[in-house]
């Protein structure tokens, strides 16, 4: 079966080009200088954290890990356009957005270890833990958005999904119901070109994933997902529209993951070329945004070093904190199956031979 050449379009919305030049002076989003600097700090921090996490996974210090490098603009730019009380529903790779939304980094490491308390999102932090079932978060996001609408709260729900996820039934069901009730929902597609090994051309015959929005009667737009300002701007506009009662928006960010799908044995060499990887790296989101900030006098070598030092220290401290966290217990597992533990389950816990309060790291 022959497949057409991959679409490598850059999206309809671009703010800065690969050299960090403003494409159109009128296209800058509403954003303060502090926020501009913060975007760079967070992207750089996330890149360094990702490099560290990949190394630690290889050394057996972490468990499940899905690398994020390459996708920082799509991830950080979209989360940064939200308010803290907006609610995000991340997919398995979207750990950085949940962390920047308030999920403590040490808990993200606990989650990677496979520790239940990793997912115990603190009160007041408005995110679900990363979703494993592709698409399930979309129908749930519609429910969260409906809650905001019913209570007349000016909040949005943002669900993250990938290119492969747009093939799932739940993706269609979720966008459809969000359209019917004009829910304050943002569907953020990070099209990183491959669902594990399957290229987007094998997911769908449609050339632009954002066109799927038309089937639900909602707005869909495609942005350069390597351009953090384009992503920020698209999400900012979608948030403003949703909070004004204008309903849902689908945003497709064209991006690329430099690494494997996860650190659990995936070899990208089997399904994509070095040339393709090189093409995408040439559009690196950090490189171009750094140049943009430098041209405005908002980024210096000193700032770079400061963030590097901070990332190194905080990422290590978070791993240390996760390592010191109390062991998971059978009691904690069993206690959280129901509001009140059923008698039979209590009997099983008591008869298990495991001390209910003991456990292993």
């Amino acid at each position: 079966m022959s497949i057409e050449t991959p679409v490598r379009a850059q999206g309809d919305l671009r703010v800065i080009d690969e050299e960090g030049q403003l494409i159109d002076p009128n296209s800058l989003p509403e954003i303060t200088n502090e926020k501009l600097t913060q975007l760079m700090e967070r992207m750089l921090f996330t890149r360094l954290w990702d490099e560290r996490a990949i190394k630690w996974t290889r050394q057996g210090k972490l468990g499940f890990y899905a690398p994020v490098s390459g996708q920082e603009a799509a991830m950080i730019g979209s989360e940064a356009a939200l308010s803290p009380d907006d609610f995000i529903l991340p997919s398995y790779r979207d750990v950085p957005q949940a962390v920047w939304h308030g999920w403590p980094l040490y808990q993200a490491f606990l989650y990677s270890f496979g520790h239940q308390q990793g997912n115990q999102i603190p009160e007041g932090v408005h995110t679900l833990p990363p979703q494993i079932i592709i698409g399930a978060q979309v129908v749930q996001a519609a429910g969260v958005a409906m809650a905001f609408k019913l209570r007349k709260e000016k909040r949005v729900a943002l669900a993250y999904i990938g290119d492969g996820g747009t093939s799932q039934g739940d993706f269609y069901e979720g966008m459809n119901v969000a359209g019917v009730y004009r829910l304050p929902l943002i569907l953020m597609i990070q099209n990183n070109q491959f669902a594990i090994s399957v290229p987007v051309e094998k997911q769908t015959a449609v050339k632009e994933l954002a066109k799927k929005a038309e089937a639900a009667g909602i707005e869909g737009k495609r942005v350069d997902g390597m351009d953090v300002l384009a992503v920020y701007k698209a999400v900012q506009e979608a948030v403003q529209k949703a909070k004004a009662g204008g309903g849902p928006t689908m945003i497709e960010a064209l991006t690329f993951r430099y690494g494997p799908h996860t650190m659990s044995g995936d070899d990208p060499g089997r399904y994509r070329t070095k040339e393709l990887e090189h093409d995408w790296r040439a559009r690196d989101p950090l490189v171009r945004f750094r140049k943009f900030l430098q041209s405005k006098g908002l980024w210096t070598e000193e700032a770079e070093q400061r963030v590097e030092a901070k990332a190194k220290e905080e990422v290590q401290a978070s791993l240390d904190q996760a390592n010191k966290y109390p062991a998971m217990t059978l009691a904690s597992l069993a206690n959280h199956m129901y509001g009140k533990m059923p008698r039979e389950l209590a009997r099983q816990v008591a008869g298990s031979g495991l001390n209910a309060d003991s456990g292993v790291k």
Partner: protein
Amino acid sequence: MAQLTMIEAIRSALSQALEKDERVLIFGEDVGVSGGVFRATDGLMQRFGEERVFDTPLAESSIAGLATGLSIQGFLPVAEIQFFGFVFEAMDEIIGQAARMRFRTGGRFHCPIVYRAPFGGGVKTPELHADSLEGLFAQSPGIKVVVPSSPYEAKGLLLSAIFDEDPVLFLEHMKLYRSFREEVPEEFYTLPLGEAKVVREGKDLTLISYGAMVRTALKSAEMAEKEQGLSVEVIDLRTISPLDMETIVTSIRKTHRAMVLQEAQRSAGVAAEVIARINEEALYDLEGPVLRVTPPDTVYPFTLFEKEWLPTEQLVLDQISQAMQA
């Protein structure tokens, strides 16, 4: 007290839940303007408004997904799956998502949802309307499964389910909807989840069932008394997950014989679980093996064969005779 059918008792429960707590929402296919294919929600949208009782698109996973999202934001959704056989479309959202929410978030979020679904044989429905799929849910940790056997039970159990802190699958046997009336209090009342009920006292054998088969069990018990002079105790499980073994074991300590009757196909289901648990908890009180009366391990048949397929009172009676000889 009014004499109500089960569908009227369910409507009364839904209406009182909406009145009592504004967090309660009802939604599903055709539940709004039309009032539900069985009229369970008749008049509720008109009375409580479209923000509280509303029609959804025809897509079960999004119905269940809305319920998940609304419930973690503090609402008490009552989501209708129009016929239980359609639940396969929503299995991930119910079992893979809502039932695991408390567990996977270490208690930060939980899903106080009720999924109502009509099911059950003997009413000539097309494929995938009548099937007894409750075993799939009873095997899934994190969700409770309730199957009422009468109008009075339906109202009290449904109100408990709506205000329960866990997701509850509430299965309504279609044959019970309008087949008989009984006294149902007009006021708000609840019946406990997770507790079985002795619906007929006896001393020779414990017959355990749930849903519409409780009616069959009661009739078989009467026949056994009349024709064979046997005294059969009948237990209505009411909740099939979690199971109430105390009521069952207490009964077996008195009767020393037991049998399980279910409408679901035979293997790996509620009857199998009840018998396994009896083996664990009451084996030495038994004078014979615990039998189960069930249809065979096929899918629910097409309508022309459903009478033959479903367990009959006579079949149960024959099995009681056999159990008494062991």
